[in-house]
């Protein structure tokens, strides 16, 4: 059974991560990487 303290800690970590500029930069970078689609792919018609 988890204590109330442990779950409070999770909430504090969640907030502190968003105050960390390095973490935010990493998240933005990996998010961009996951949406990279080549222009060539964008022009391929779905023909089936």
């Amino acid at each position, binding site marked *: *059974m*988890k204590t109330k303290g*442990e*779950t409070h800690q*999770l*909430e504090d*970590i*969640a*907030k502190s*991560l*968003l105050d960390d500029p390095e*973490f*935010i930069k*990493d*998240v*933005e970078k*990996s*998010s961009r*990487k*996951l*949406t*990279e*689609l*080549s222009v*060539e*792919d*964008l*022009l*391929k*018609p*779905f*023909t*089936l």
Partner: protein
Amino acid sequence: MNGYPFFRICRPDELEPVIGNSVQAQYILKYVKDLSCKTCLQEKEYIDRDYMIDYADFYSRSFQEFKRKVNRIHFFTGEFDEDDFSRALIDNDLKSICGDYIGFTVVKPIENSLRQPTIGRTLLSTYSCNNDRDHNSRRIFTRYQYPVHIFGNEFTVETLPFQSQDTAVGACATASLWISCNAMNKLFDTELCSPYEITERSLTYPSISRKFPSTGLDPYQVFNFLWSQGLDTEVLVLANMNIHEYDKPSKQSLQAAYLFIRAFIRANIPIITALSLKREDEESLDYHAAVISGFTEGNTDAVSKLYFHDDQIGPFCGTEWTHNTNRLSNEWVSRGWDSLNMNILIAPIYHKLRLPILEAIGHFNKMKSIAVERGIQADLLIYNSNDYKAELLEQDIVDKPRVLMSNLPRFIIVERFFTEHRLFKDVLLDGTHPFPSIIEPVVEYNQ
């Protein structure tokens, strides 16, 4: 002998002369039989909105004659004949003989390239959410309630509409957009469009192909249509679609895809997916668009089974997803293609859901790794705040009145922490803010 010119009652096995022998027709017949269909009711002169628009915009200007009206076939679990049906209408007691209403399919008076009738708007109930073969898993579908009127009686079907492509006015991407368009209309009151209208609007982003007969939309044109609806899009690329990369997703993209699919499908938002297909002896790929309309939720984060609305197969088509790859398996593989791979996920979203889901996933992944070290599990959910509060009403949470009376943005992304036995806490991210930010209250579940 049928004394009524506009309807007929028959058994599923007697439907082929009407519904035809296309892959989709065969799929639908098998599907309704799996849902225990015993009796079919054929409406012979039904006016279908989508087909009527396509008829007015396209078919009415052909030299060849096309019918304006369609066949609509309803499916019931009850067993009855025409005399039973007529008596029940007189007694206003139709529901006593019909059993469960499974839904309907429209058969258009348009033939596909194999001279089979084209399947139009189809609303069929989903499989049960409980999986009889595996009690640890549960099926999650995107579905909405639709009222259906039959001779003054109202029936209801909970589903996501389906139709197959009518090659002249649109190919697979048009059919996928039509399915998505129906979902968005239910969720965000966006405009409903017929297949012809979808193709025409998508093609305001030009390409070198002919507009009509349609040869297929490209991803730019898919985005163009969705944006023209006032929607925005969330995109996740599992693997690029060229011959060298199509089957090589990164571990990160696969993990993100599991979360992406789980979050959007549970939020009742269907996902359009770009698929690549390859034959063993060929060095090129074919491209196809379909809609993810459900998945099976098990004990792990990975998703091993998806349900597709694939216009070339049928609604809620079970599709196996090979672990740690983007490789899928369904009817396509038995039709001569050796591989079917999932490359791009496109979720249409309301423009006020401004927080990019992949940034929320980035924050969530870090939180999850910390939680797991402490023996706590985590999940990521997208909510409309009204639905979220409705769920909380049923829960035992700390300071319930304060939580329920708090102001929340229209959309929230919930990081949920729990163990096998109970929920712990929901951390809420403001879905309407352009970057991740936590909003009060943090929702704590009573122990």
